[in-house]
């Protein structure tokens, strides 16, 4: 069987690969890319993958990612890889890595947490477990699971 991605190459920009199948649109939300976005974007959803069976992939023209964006992506796509493309060539490729501490990355799911008031602090979480993903708020000490993390991103 021929296994080809039906997504064209990009000239300059970023490729986010190995996103768990079905999570690409959430990654787009993390990157705040919506109908006002002017970049050219290709999204592959549930494309065949030797490693993952199925995966999502996103290619964005003329867009670099900030560290906090990569950290957020790592929460929902811990095995994602990111390639920086310059003039059709990959100049840099790396896997996202779940940081052991996440500052200002995700809002605390606990509505009674002090960080949800207008206080001059960023949210602050410790990584408790990678699989399944669990993080703990350093203020209210509540744990958040994957579902709660996704709804708070």
């Amino acid at each position: 069987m021929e296994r080809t991605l039906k997504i064209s190459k990009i000239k300059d920009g970023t490729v986010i690969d190995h996103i768990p199948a079905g999570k690409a649109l959430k990654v787009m939300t993390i990157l705040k890319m919506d109908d006002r976005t002017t970049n050219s974007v290709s999204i592959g959803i549930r494309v065949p993958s030797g490693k993952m069976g199925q995966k999502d992939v996103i290619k964005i023209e003329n867009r670099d990612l900030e560290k906090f964006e990569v950290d957020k992506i790592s929460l929902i796509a811990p095995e994602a890889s990111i390639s920086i493309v310059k003039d059709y060539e990959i100049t840099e490729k790396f896997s996202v890595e779940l940081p052991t501490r996440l500052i200002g990355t995700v809002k605390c799911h606990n509505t009674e947490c002090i960080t949800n008031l207008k206080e001059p602090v960023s949210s602050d979480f410790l990584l408790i477990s990678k699989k399944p993903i669990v993080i703990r708020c350093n203020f209210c000490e509540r744990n958040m699971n994957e579902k709660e993390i996704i709804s708070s991103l």
Partner: protein
Amino acid sequence: MLKNRSIVSIDDIGDNELDDIFKATDEMSNALKQGKVLKLLDGMVMATFFYEPSTRTRLSFESAMHRLGGSVISVSEAKSSSVSKGETLADTVRMAEGYADIIVIRHPMEGAAKLASRFSSKPIINAGDGSGQHPTQTILDLYTIKRELGEINGKEITIVGDLRYGRTVHSLLLALTKFDVSINLVSPEILKVPDHILSRLPKGIKMKVANDLDSVMEHTDVLYVTRIQKERFSDQTEYQSVIGSYSIDMEAVSKMKEDSIIMHPLPRVDEIAPDVDSSPKAAYFRQAGNGVPVRMALVSMILGGK
């Protein structure tokens, strides 16, 4: 050493520090009994911010500071403070650190004391943060068990009542995991210990969930009763469905072991009948009395008076 440290969570107290706190508490307790005037913190000031109602905790902190020779400044409620003008807790704390050597905070939001400790160069003591923790209550609970029964290890402890919202229960459970104890949890279905606390308890802990208090009464060493807290329910019909779920009366007490005790962080409503008060097993007023020497020990150790 606790010197200059904040106590925000029970985890802030190291395993081997509890013994030092207990020894210091014994000394404070003896000094109080002998009517000694202590001047350990002469000239020092404690600021108390109680944004939620409190009687015992507040009075015992303030009494502890006065007994140590220090003085207290306080804000009684959020309504009368700059919070009502929209000031953040972070700003309030940064102002207060200029006025006091140690700051005691009770706040309805979880993590409030932690936030305060990040903005203050002066030590912060958490006197209760919403449904979060109440570490000094836990220290005095542990001290009470040790003082009443001689030992914490080897005991069977039954915690009954509101295990969902009760912050004293959350702190106590986390602290008890450091000891070799058996724990029974008894509560209405909707007031069970929340997952975020259960997930933090070590796997090997001897703990069982019992629906029926009678089934555990006979072998319980410590019966820790808590109030079902009306103020934590957003749905008052839910509160009505569980109020009065457990009531400890003399008939129930008669089933308990000879050397067992009954504790309660107080205030109680109707979960312990008044005639139980005369039983030697009723340790809850002695427990409340331990609040002053325990807090004297903590404040003194933090401020270097001891």
